[in-house]
């Protein structure tokens, strides 16, 4: 017991205490600057669940998460497959592909907002010069453009994580599997779906789980790109938590939103654990 005490203390300080604090705060009406307030029981949850804002933001959060995650996986796996080939400057390319992941979100957003700008942005200029559009497109101020734009920026920012994980796994797939597939007459597409993808299944499950949780609670990128607009088109749950806590100074309600978000993410976590347990049992049986 004494040996694991430090671990328990650290986990208690950085996970259990903040978690219990958030749950505790969610039962109070609290003015953020003074942290003073009074007990309101489940009133915050009643108001939250009864408001259209929560459900609308939950749907928006789900759309953003699914959209950007899908792009990240597609681009990430594609890029990992490319970097696995014997291409020129492969080492350099493997290093450069990590660049967006290391870049500060604030800097990345500034650059992308500039690219999307209707008056000076290169994106609109290029499309107009190519004759694809006649007038600048409102990338961030109209729907569904704003949602699509933040999905693309999110995918650009976070796909390197997928690349790292998938590339590491690709390097451990035995070459004999591909040779056997070739002997059996499998082409590149068949080899991908029948050899590569099954081998990537475990790592992709982990990547999807982690990125789902991280994308679900993404705040800074969306806040800086659109602020949640137009209207509430990109207003995800983390933006509401921030506004409740620091705009409206209602820390109790913000905590209720945060706890609700945690419960939604818990569903993903339980699904993952169940799947992991089932797989572990299957491996043991084999």
């Amino acid at each position, binding site marked *: 017991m004494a040996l694991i005490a430090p671990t328990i203390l650290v986990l208690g300080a950085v996970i259990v205490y903040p978690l219990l604090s958030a749950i505790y705060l969610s039962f109070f009406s609290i003015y953020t*600057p003074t942290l003073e307030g009074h007990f309101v029981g489940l009133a915050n949850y009643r108001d939250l669940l009864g408001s259209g804002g929560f459900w609308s933001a939950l749907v928006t959060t789900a759309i953003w998460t699914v959209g950007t995650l899908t792009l990240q996986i597609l681009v990430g796996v594609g890029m990992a497959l490319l970097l696995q080939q014997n291409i020129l400057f492969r080492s350099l390319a493997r290093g450069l592909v990590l660049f967006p992941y290391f870049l500060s979100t604030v800097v990345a957003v500034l650059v992308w907002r500039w690219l999307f700008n209707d008056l000076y942005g290169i994106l609109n200029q290029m499309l107009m010069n190519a004759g694809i559009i006649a007038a600048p497109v409102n990338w961030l101020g109209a729907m569904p453009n704003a949602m699509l734009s933040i999905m693309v920026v999110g995918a650009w920012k976070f796909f390197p994580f997928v690349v790292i994980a998938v590339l590491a796994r690709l390097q451990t797939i035995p070459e004999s599997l591909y040779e056997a597939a070739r002997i059996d007459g499998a082409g590149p597409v068949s080899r991908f779906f029948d050899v590569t993808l099954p081998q990537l299944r475990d790592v992709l499950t982990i990547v999807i789980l982690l990125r789902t949780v991280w994308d679900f609670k993404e705040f800074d990128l969306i806040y800086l790109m659109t602020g949640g*607009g137009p209207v509430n088109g990109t207003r995800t749950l983390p933006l509401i938590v921030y506004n409740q806590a620091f705009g409206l100074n209602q820390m109790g309600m913000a905590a209720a939103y945060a706890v609700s978000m945690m419960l939604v993410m818990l569903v993903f976590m339980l699904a993952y654990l169940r799947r992991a347990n089932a797989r572990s049992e299957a491996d043991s049986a084999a």
Partner: protein
Amino acid sequence: MNQPERNPLRRPVTRRDTLRVLAGSGAAAAAALTAGCGSKDERTTLRWWSPQASPDQLKAYKAQIAAFEAANPTIRVVFEATSDEGYPAQFATAFAARQLPNLVTHLPSFAAQQYYAEGLLEPVDDVIKAIGIDRYFAGANEVYRTSDKHYCATGIGNTAADMLWYRKDLLAAAGITAPPATWDELRSAAQKMQRDGIYGAALPYGMNAMTSLIFIGFIHRAGGQVFSPDLQVAIDSQPTYDALAFFQSMREFCPTGASNFSWGESLTAFVSGSTATGIYSGRVLANVAAQNPAIADAIGCTTYPTMSRDIPAWTYNDFPCLLIPKGAPHLAETKAFAASLYQPQLYAQQMHAAPGHVLPVLRAVADDGFYRANPLITRYAAEVDLMTKAATAGHNLGQETAAHKPNLKANEIIASNAIAELVQRVVLNKENPKAAVAATAVRLAELMRA
């Protein structure tokens, strides 16, 4: 058999070596830090926050700090920049964590009123007395008056934040001889000037504080108000529908990206020459001089047009103020430093750092030759005088007219984006204005009750 002596420089580095080096480095760093403690700055430190922190303004603040520190060798002042959109969060966390700055400047008056009402600010009556209330413009501090007969803050400047900026050359080319004075004239002018890649206007339609703050002015310019003088929700009225209709009709004369405009984008659109008119404060002057001097002789400003000539102008002044958080240490020193910021020459230099943008609240400084000798203030004397006059008579949601009671919820109403959302629902989503305004009225009532 003797092992040959190994060259220690060739010996491979082991895990133990690495740990030794790390331990040694740690001990050396700890020793250096301990030694440093002996020579640490013993002066009293005052922290000063402001969202106004352009390079020129920082230079002016440094001069003010240096002068105060020279007169008070036991005190040092540290400046920390905040932001217009981010200060509510920074303030909330600073208060909650009890990590308070000693002095904050350039926050809007309605923020000061709210924080004071929550018991978070010291009254600054002593500071105003030390500066001399007679040195201010008449009534300059009334907006900071509290229900307990104190001052929650004092003005550090004035800002006429929603002036109509126009291009004289483009007006002339469109055959317009005088700047627009009504909405119909403005719309017509914008239509005529919109050509060759130049848009007519730079109104904001974004989901942010600027849209809320600017649109409140349009409700007043239609003869309406957001709240009645006794703070009942009054937004659901014909003037609000008129203001929405005007905003909607102007959308086609604004850049495509105006639906994401905040202060920076709106300012840049006019300064860069992308729009023929702009809506902003005197910051335009310095930015045009620095970034687009080719149009410097062609710009002018007036108070933003109203719906009709019989409705008086309404100028948005956020009344940038100086306030002192309650609970921060060294109160006497803080008040002394606060008063020192109004030393005429240094105060004028602070105004020079953003000429026409932050306008003086001290009458003597506004008329002083040193202040007026600034090249931009000299060049645009008529515009600066007009902005000074408009700002002095200006208002904001914290006190919509002189007859209104201070609205202690104004800060949270702006932060909620409820009014910006109204604009977006009607203009961008084409929702029914009556339904959208009714929903906003309910939302405002909820915010007032919260």
